[in-house]
């Protein structure tokens, strides 16, 4: 057993969405402290929303993130529609799923190929990978572009869509406009499958004893479809709640080293959200082709190694491409692009599945439809405690590594979660304190 002490500090974490830092302290072979520091100033979106009209969160919250604006738009729209007792179905519902597929594709591919893959290959950037694998990365870029193209056609812009409104859209695309996406999606499907096989060939570190029984994996669960916009909140440990009840069980606490709140269930239940949770709770709802591909690359019904989340993201990308093709094939434009959503007094909540995991919104409106309170709990806030637990367990079980390698691996542990630090309102730096040396 090592008795080493160390102090690891990474002041600026790279290849993440946003910026932050990490600090790990080990004394006499025991990890004493782990901190994922988020030091970006709070962006006050919840405060901005108070006093605004009920139709405005869809546009305001889209500006929280350039990578996952659709998630914010969908959670905001559904929360206020729930409050008003409005259900959006038919082709408008399908268009929302299609838009979300576009976001999953562009976000997952950006993370997999450009932010996470360099960790496994020992290179510093996607450009280096592109020099080594030009044909693969050309197809990967096309795959990502196809996701952005869906967002442009359905949402009006490739980022920060402007065509989304309460009750649906300002304009619904024609059947021809959607059909024009099909050749790109067919090419994208082949690229997504290739990408899965490529990342599945990486060597994956592990965290000993990190079992499903030790971690609560939380996601939406819909009876008929892999979840995007709707469903109950479930977990592998028996959680099964309506979204409104989930909000009541959420507890957010402030910790000194982070400007992002840490979320727990009931104040003490640590959990995680994201692709591993979605997969674990919904694998039976995937297409046969995705399940066959999962079998081929060794992903079972319950994947618990966070380093293998990159493979699950790839499988979800294949699914999103297939779902987009399915929606386009069945699409007939709606009679009207949106349904009316009246401004009523009350409280409405919703959660949808952002690429990084469950995104919860809750709004309280007065009798004139003005927002009096807003709560937004992004996936990265919900994952912070799990990230710090992984860092602690990983460092504790890999103290034999040299400082440089250990620091690098710790960054990789964080990137397993594809953290959207800006969404969580925040930034990252990494440090380690290894005083005393090896014994």
């Amino acid at each position, binding site marked *: 057993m090592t008795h080493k002490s160390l102090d690891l500090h990474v002041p600026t974490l790279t290849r993440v969405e946003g910026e932050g830092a990490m600090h790990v302290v080990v004394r006499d072979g025991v990890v004493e402290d782990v901190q994922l520091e988020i030091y970006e100033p709070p962006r006050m979106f919840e405060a901005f929303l108070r006093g605004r009209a009920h139709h405005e969160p869809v546009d305001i919250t889209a500006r929280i993130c350039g*990578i996952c604006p659709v998630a914010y738009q969908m959670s905001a729209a559904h929360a206020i529609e729930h409050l008003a007792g409005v259900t959006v179905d038919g082709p408008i519902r399908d268009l929302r799923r299609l838009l979300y597929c576009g976001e999953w594709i562009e976000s997952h591919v950006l993370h997999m190929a450009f932010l996470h893959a360099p960790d496994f290959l020992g290179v510093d950037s996607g450009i280096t990978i592109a020099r080594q694998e030009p044909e693969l990365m050309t197809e990967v870029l096309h795959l990502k572009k196809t996701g952005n193209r869906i967002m442009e056609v359905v949402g009006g812009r490739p980022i920060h869509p402007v065509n989304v409104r309460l009750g649906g859209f300002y304009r619904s695309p024609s059947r021809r406009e959607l059909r024009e996406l099909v050749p790109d999606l067919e090419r994208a499907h082949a690229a997504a499958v290739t990408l899965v096989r490529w990342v599945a060939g990486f060597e994956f570190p592990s965290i000993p004893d990190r079992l499903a029984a030790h971690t609560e994996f939380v996601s939406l669960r819909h009876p008929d479809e892999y979840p995007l916009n709707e469903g109950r909140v479930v977990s592998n440990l028996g959680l099964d709640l309506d979204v409104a009840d989930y909000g009541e069980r959420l507890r957010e606490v402030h910790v000194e080293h982070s400007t992002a709140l840490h979320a727990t269930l009931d104040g003490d239940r640590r959990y995680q959200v994201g692709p591993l949770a979605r997969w674990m709770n919904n694998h039976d709802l995937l297409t046969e082709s995705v399940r066959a591909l999962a079998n081929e690359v060794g992903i079972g019904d319950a994947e618990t190694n966070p380093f293998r989340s990159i493979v699950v993201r790839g499988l979800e990308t294949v699914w999103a491409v297939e779902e987009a093709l399915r929606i386009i094939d069945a699409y007939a434009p709606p009679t009207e692009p949106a349904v009316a959503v009246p401004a009523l007094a009350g409280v409405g909540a919703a959660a949808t599945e952002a690429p990084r995991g469950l995104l919860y919104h809750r709004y309280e409106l007065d009798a004139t439809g003005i927002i009096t309170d807003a709560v937004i709990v992004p996936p990265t806030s919900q994952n912070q405690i799990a990230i710090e637990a992984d860092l602690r367990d990983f460092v504790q079980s890999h103290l034999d590594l040299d400082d440089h390698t250990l620091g690098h691996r710790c960054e990789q542990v964080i990137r397993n979660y594809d953290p959207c630090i800006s969404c969580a309102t925040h930034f990252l730096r990494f440090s380690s304190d290894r005083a005393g040396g090896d014994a």
Partner: protein
Amino acid sequence: MTAIVIGVGNRDRGDDAAGPLVCDRLRARPGASASLRMFVCEGSILDLGLRWEPDDHVIIVDAMRPASRPGRIVTVDATLDALPTPGAVSTHEIDVSVAIELARAIGRMPARLLIVGIEAAQAEWGTPPSEPVEAAIDSAVALVEELAASGGVPGHPAANVAS
């Protein structure tokens, strides 16, 4: 040969709107050349290299970081020489240089690729372009038209110069 003008930037962020504004004015000019194609890139920039073909002459117009002379126009020929990139970056640092080097890495560079940079004074959310940048837009438009007309001419004097 078709010249492609790509205006990169965010219209809602002060001088970052310079690239899109140049494209707007090129489109609005009487008798805008049919051999000139314009598009604005306000969003994902990584796939820039998929937007042109090997025979194209491409001119990218983008705002540059504030330094000492807001409104200064700089032209860089990126056809052959690699641009410095920030290496391992967060998504907030993915810029034109990353996109171009990615295109070079996958073997998708156009016949000629010029960057016209306009030095910004500020890029604050919700603000209009600053006076010096606004004043530089017409000069940038004229420069882009000149560069497009001389496309493919090796050693064109406009390359790698500041005005």
